[in-house]
């Protein structure tokens, strides 16, 4: 059985992010992109302190990725008089977020990033299917799935924490369902917000997620 242990949606004005990081870890996160700061704040809010040592994987997706950082690098490389600053190149690498997170989530054993190819769509059906398979085979105790976007206008983080065992207030269980339901909700970046809305309602008893782009990867949540 796979359990949904936490659902979280966050939104920050970019100027608020460093403050949110300091509130979460008691200090600023040195040389961290907005995306990394968003990842840290969301991961810590999703994972109770007593769970942070458990074997954990992070599967995260982003629409805009490190767009501003990439524009900065392109400007330096194409228009600058010299080679770019080393950190400006490093800042374009989404993979470094995980190394910065591991200091605060000692159980974090793996991180995978899937950049998205179209605004308004998401890979939740892929991430949750992988999470379901990996938890079922015992590869990890828990898996954080996220959609993160940090733009000059706003930073959005949507999170789902799945586990092989239920936490005390686990609201639902998850199962992979290869026969998509006609009333399934679409695979969009804010799917956790829709899931939270459903959890606050009395019915229906289940919620299905289905991406028309991936007909074999359908999922169903059922309240506990």
């Amino acid at each position, binding site marked *: 059985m796979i359990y949904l242990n936490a659902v979280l949606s966050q939104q920050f004005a970019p100027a608020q992010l460093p403050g949110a990081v300091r509130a979460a870890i008691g200090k600023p996160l040195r040389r961290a992109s907005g995306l990394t700061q968003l990842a840290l704040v969301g991961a810590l809010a999703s994972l109770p302190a007593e769970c942070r040592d458990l074997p954990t994987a992070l599967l995260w997706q982003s629409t805009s990725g490190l767009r501003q950082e990439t524009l900065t690098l*392109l400007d330096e490389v194409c228009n600058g008089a*010299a080679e770019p600053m080393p950190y400006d190149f490093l800042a374009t690498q989404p993979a470094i977020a995980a190394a910065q997170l591991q200091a605060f989530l000692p159980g974090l054993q793996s991180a995978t990033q899937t950049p998205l*190819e179209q605004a308004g769509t998401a890979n939740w059906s892929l991430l949750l299917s992988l999470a379901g398979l990996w938890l079922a085979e015992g590869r990890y105790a828990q898996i954080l799935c996220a959609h993160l976007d940090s733009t000059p206008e706003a930073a959005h983080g949507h999170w789902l924490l799945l586990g092989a065992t239920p936490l005390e207030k686990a609201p639902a269980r998850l199962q992979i369902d290869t026969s998509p339901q006609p009333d399934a909700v679409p695979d969009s970046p804010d799917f956790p917000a829709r899931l939270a809305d459903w959890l606050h309602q009395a019915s229906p008893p289940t919620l299905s997620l289905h991406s028309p782009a991936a007909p074999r990867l359908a999922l169903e949540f059922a309240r506990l």
Partner: protein
Amino acid sequence: MKRPVHIAGRGLLCAGGDSPEAVAAALWDGACPPGRRRLGEREFPYFALPLAEADWLARAEQAVRCTAAQLGPLAAETPLFIASSSFQIGHFEQRGAPFELPAASASFSHQLGDWMGLNGPRYSFSNACIAGFSALDAARSLIAGGLLNQAVVLGVELANHSTLAGFAAMELLSRSACRPFDAGRDGLVLGEAVAAVHLSAAPARWRIAGLRTGLDGYSTTGPDPAGGPIASAAVDCLQEAKITAADIDLVKLQAAGSPGTDLAEANALRRVFAQRMPPLLSLKSAIGHTLGASGIAELVALLACLDAEHIPATAGFSRVDPEIALFPMVDRSNAHIERALLNLIGFGGGLASLIVERSR
């Protein structure tokens, strides 16, 4: 449900040649010298694709179509898993300012799917140097779990100034050659590649026996020198494959000639294999470090070598580093390999180990 996942088809275009067999032959002959690539006042060795086309997008299309054709006929709806570190940044460089980046960072994947002739589900992975194995892990997990029957995993890394300049600015590049595990190693040599594997639940010659990704948060740019996390990923992989270290016949190293990472990998290998070290091989000194494509490109090249029973010597190695105290293969071999372990170590602490095994 957990089904075996097989490697049913392969394609490769890299500096070593335009097919897996051609690359294997070039590796066997030791005939893969790098060219040079200029960056401002500096020049670096570089393994470029053998394509003359000057337009970045046209060259990318040529490279991807060449690789796709090697896979043979595929159903158009076959899911595609794409690994890349830089996607189409070279195209934006060529077009110049103002840089019109699309709203979605992997928008290029749609184009890649079109060139591959695939219009099914597409997923992109950008985990620096382990991206290829992250994509492979996702695809094979879904096949093993019965959610897919087949998939194509594509690794794409094409020339651009941003990546070269970034690595150069971090002083990670050699000015002369890639020397894996060598006492005189002084950095990486980058390269280009487009590579693909067709994964299937149907039996084929090679199967994926184990695949594990890991994370080493020692620093954002390099692994723990003691090699503990790298060893853990390899041990997890052995456990999944239900074999012991003694069952591994060959290790395809990450070994890119980096002073720190090569040492960490060597220390990890000692933890895993102790006194029973299998033959060690690095391919990066012969085809370059192809970053997000390296996992798939080196897997395809290695399998072609193993099929031919022509295991090449590791180019660039000549002098043992007493601190590493290991040496990769310096002589060619016709050994029959049943199982090989492939290591990847990337920026951001990404680690991956893969075990491939001949199907029985």
